[in-house]
Each structure stands twice: as structure tokens, then as C-alpha cells.
């Protein structure tokens, strides 16, 4: 069971890391290239942000992952499927967990939500008085807004994506043969071992509620801080 915990936790931690890195990159790009923040895969720009980005909010893992596995195997001659757990070192498992985490972050729309939140929050907070003051003092408004916009967009995206992340985790682990809780749930379900099946689900839900609690707590804390801002 410990092995299953390890792999699932590693995939989720990679997901957190990827989302944090993407948030920073997108924030910087949207500040550096003025038109970058408004591109939305649509002709009419911001008017159809919702519809334009809508397709990318849920890209089934079964669309992305088999394509990735095929391309890396046949074109780049790389194997992204997990190594055999008993023969692999911790370093191999750590590196192998990164690819499922990338697919998870894209397929659940986490990265798209972070991008959309950053764009929206910048528009909301730009007219704020503290931003105008920073401009008047010759400071960079992007720098002033970074901490607030970055944290809030990350937390909001995680809160709304959590159910999809944990739902897609099952299929991700099945596709990549990652020995995590999701794969264990699938094996127990195939064997119709209800006791093992529900105990693995309870462990997975435990991790889910820990993530939910942390993101809920952070969300409330940010909300309290925002009450003090004059907008």
C-alpha cells in the first residue's frame, strides 16, 4: 500500500509543481507581450474566451495520453510508461511520475484555468487604488500584482479542478501503468474484490480531502486579505 501512496503522491506533487511553474511563465508572458493575455483560440478575441477555451477545459486523457505514448515510443524512441516498480529506484519512479503529471495538468484543464484566472484577475485588479499608486510612484504594477494574482489564480484553479484531477488519476495510472492508488482501484475492481476496492477508494478520497482542505483554507485566507484591499 505504501508503494501505491508513493506513486500517487509523486504524481500529484509533480502536478502542483507544473501548475506553479506554468502560473509564473504565463504571468510573465502576459505582462511582457501585451497581446499574449488576450489570445483565446478564437477570431473575436476576448468576446469568446469562454467558447474558445471551452474545448480545452476538458480534453479527455484518452485523447492525449495514447497520442503521447505513441509519439514518444515510435518517433523519439522513449518509453514514458512506468518502469517495473520492484526493479526501479526512487529516482526512476520520481522521473517517470512527471509525464503522467503533465498529461493530468493538461487534460483536466488545470493549466487553462490558471491562464484564464490570471487574465481575469489582472483585469479586475488593474483599476485598484494600490496599483494606481504604484504606477504614480514609478513602480511596476506587474510586480505589485504578482503575489496576489498568482496565488489567487492558482488556488482558484486548484479548487475548481480537484474533482477532475482525482477522477482522471485513475485512467492516467492505468494508461501509464503507474503503480498508484488508481491502478490498485482498477485491479481490485477487475477482480471484483469489493473490500480492497472500497478501501483503496477511501485512501484516495483521504488524499483528495487533504488537498481540498488545504486549497479551501488558502482560499479563505486570501479572501480575508482581499477584504482589506480598497478596490
Amino acid at each position, binding site marked *: 500500500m505504501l508503494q501505491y501512496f508513493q506513486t500517487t503522491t509523486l504524481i500529484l506533487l509533480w502536478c502542483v509543481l507544473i501548475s506553479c511553474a506554468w502560473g509564473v511563465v504565463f504571468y510573465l508572458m502576459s505582462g511582457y507581450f501585451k497581446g499574449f493575455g488576450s489570445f483565446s483560440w478564437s477570431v473575436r478575441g476576448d468576446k469568446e474566451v469562454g467558447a474558445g477555451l471551452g474545448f480545452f477545459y476538458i480534453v479527455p486523457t*484518452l485523447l492525449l495520453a*495514447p497520442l503521447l505514448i505513441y509519439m514518444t515510443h515510435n518517433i523519439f524512441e522513449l518509453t514514458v510508461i512506468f518502469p517495473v516498480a520492484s526493479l526501479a529506484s526512487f529516482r526512476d519512479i520520481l522521473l517517470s511520475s512527471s509525464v503522467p503529471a503533465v498529461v493530468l495538468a493538461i487534460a483536466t484543464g488545470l493549466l487553462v484555468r490558471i491562464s484564464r484566472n490570471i487574465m481575469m484577475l489582472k483585469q479586475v485588479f488593474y483599476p485598484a487604488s494600490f496599483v494606481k499608486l504604484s504606477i504614480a510612484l514609478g513602480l511596476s504594477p506587474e510586480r505589485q500584482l504578482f503575489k496576489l494574482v498568482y496565488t489567487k489564480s492558482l488556488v482558484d484553479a486548484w479548487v475548481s479542478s480537484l474533482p477532475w484531477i482525482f477522477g482522471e488519476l485513475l485512467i492516467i495510472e492505468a494508461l501509464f501503468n503507474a503503480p498508484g492508488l488508481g491502478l490498485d482501484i482498477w485491479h481490485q475492481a477487475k477482480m471484483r474484490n469489493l473490500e480492497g476496492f472500497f478501501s483503496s477508494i477511501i485512501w484516495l478520497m483521504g488524499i483528495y480531502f487533504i488537498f481540498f482542505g488545504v486549497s479551501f483554507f488558502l482560499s479563505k485566507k486570501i479572501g480575508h486579505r482581499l477584504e482589506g484591499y480598497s478596490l
Partner: protein
Amino acid sequence: MKETFLEPRSLPKAQTDENTKRMRNSCFDYMRSMFGRPFVFVRRFIWVVAVVFFFSLLVTGMVWDVSTRVSLSSSNLDATWQHFFGTDHMGRDLFYRYCQAMIGSIVPLWGVVIAATCSAIGFSALLFFGSERAIFRAFSRASNLLSALILSLPFAVLVLAFSVVYEKTGLIPVMGVGFFYIFFKTTSKLSQMLAESQNFSHWQGHEAMGGGRLQRFFSYGILSDFRMYLTSDFCFNLRLIVAAEITLSYLGFGVSEPDPSIGNIISSNIEMALKGDPRILFTALFVLAVTMMIPSKIEEALNRLRRKTSAKLS
């Protein structure tokens, strides 16, 4: 020239020339928008191909009842005019299998989404209509509590748990869990929006002038203030339920062989792709991509209709 009863009224020549010039410019603008911006052209072309292909799958599945017979002598054939996507390892025509997958699973699932959304709207209307009575308020609180409980759990995990307990393969677990999940999700969001709408001035004005609750719910709510949310949520649910069914079929719990589903076609042929024959995998992924793109197009069309209606009213 003097107008008569029989002769049509003709415009002055200058205005006719102006109209012709305007029409020609708009045609040039349209052509320029298509070919002057290659990204736009490619995007529109992809959408047209996707929509045409999707409807051809639906129509073929409904009109032609071709049984996909096993024919081992014609297994793993490449794409030809007889077999548009070739055949699989059992010699079954792939195009018709995808048609059957559309008619057999995608269409009923989208029917479930429509039914759940309509039921949620009806239920919310009922709760709003009777919200002055204690029993309806109790119902409303119970519904919100149940929604919070169900919606806090991941949908795919719920569907898998139900299908394991149900002990049979097929669409019933996805349809059952999907109906209730979408029902409670929509009801919960509608009750939240109704609570916020009490502060809108046009709602308060309508109430002050003696307007009915149901009339307010439908005219100001469903057909006006809530329409954007309902549209995007409806299209999101269309994609969600299809993704869940395909996942379940891939894992072996949804629609299983010999009945076709995109999930079980992918699971049977992923190994073949890794061995160097990706034809079936790519065709399955193409059909899946098209199926997931169609709800986005529906959302775009509904949003465009909503903007036109709002522009006319204003």
C-alpha cells in the same frame, strides 16, 4: 422618372453604385478574412470537417443497418473506398463500428444530459415557486445538502464505484450516475443564482408590480440572466459524460466487446499502435476529438444566438 403602379421603384444611380460597392467590399473582406489570415482559415476548415464528419457518422448509423460481421480473411485492411477507415483485427469495418458507437452510446448519453438539465430546471422552478412554504424550504435545504455531498466526490470515481457494485457492463451506470450528478449540479447552481437574483432591481421591480414567481423564473432567469451559465454548463456536461463513458469502457466496465465504444476500441488497439500500426488508434482518437469538439460548437452557436437576441432587444 414618374413611378407607375406596374414599374418598380428604382433607386437613384448613385445609391445603387454605393450599394454594389459595399457588397463587393464585404465579399472581398470575407475572402480576405478567410485567406488573408491563415489561422482563421485553418480553424474554420477544421470545424467544417469535424461537423460534417460527425453528422455523417450519425446519419450513417441511423439510416444504414449494416451489421459489422466478423470476417477474418479481411482483417487489418487499410483504408479503401469500401472501408473508409479500414478493418480491425476481426475484419469488422471500422467506420460502421464508429457509427454504431455514436448511435449506441454517445446519443443516449447526450439524451441523459438533456433530460437531467430539463429536470433540474423544472425542480428548481418548483422549489422557487413554493419557496414561501416551509416544506419547500426544507426540500430546498435537503437538495442543497445532497448536492454538496455528491458534488464533492469526483465523478469518474462515483461512476466506477457504481459500475463495480452493479456487476454488469453497459451504459446503465454512466447514465444513472450521470443523470443524478448533472441534476444536482444544475439544481445547486440554479438555487445559488436564484438567491443572488433577489438583489437584482428588475427582479424586485417585477415582484413589487405583482408579477408571478414562475414568470420571473423563466423570463428573467432561464431565458435571460441564467442563460449564459446554463449554456456553458450544458456543453461542459456533454463533454463530461462522454469522457466518463469512454474512460469506463477503456477500463473494461462500460460498453464491452463485441458492442463498439470508442474506449474499448482504443484499449484493444493501443498495443498494435506501439508495434507500428497506429491506423486504428488514430482513427479512434480522431472520432473522439470530433465528438469532444461538437459541444464547443454548440456553445458558440448558442452564445451567438443569445448575443443577437440581446442586441435586438436593446
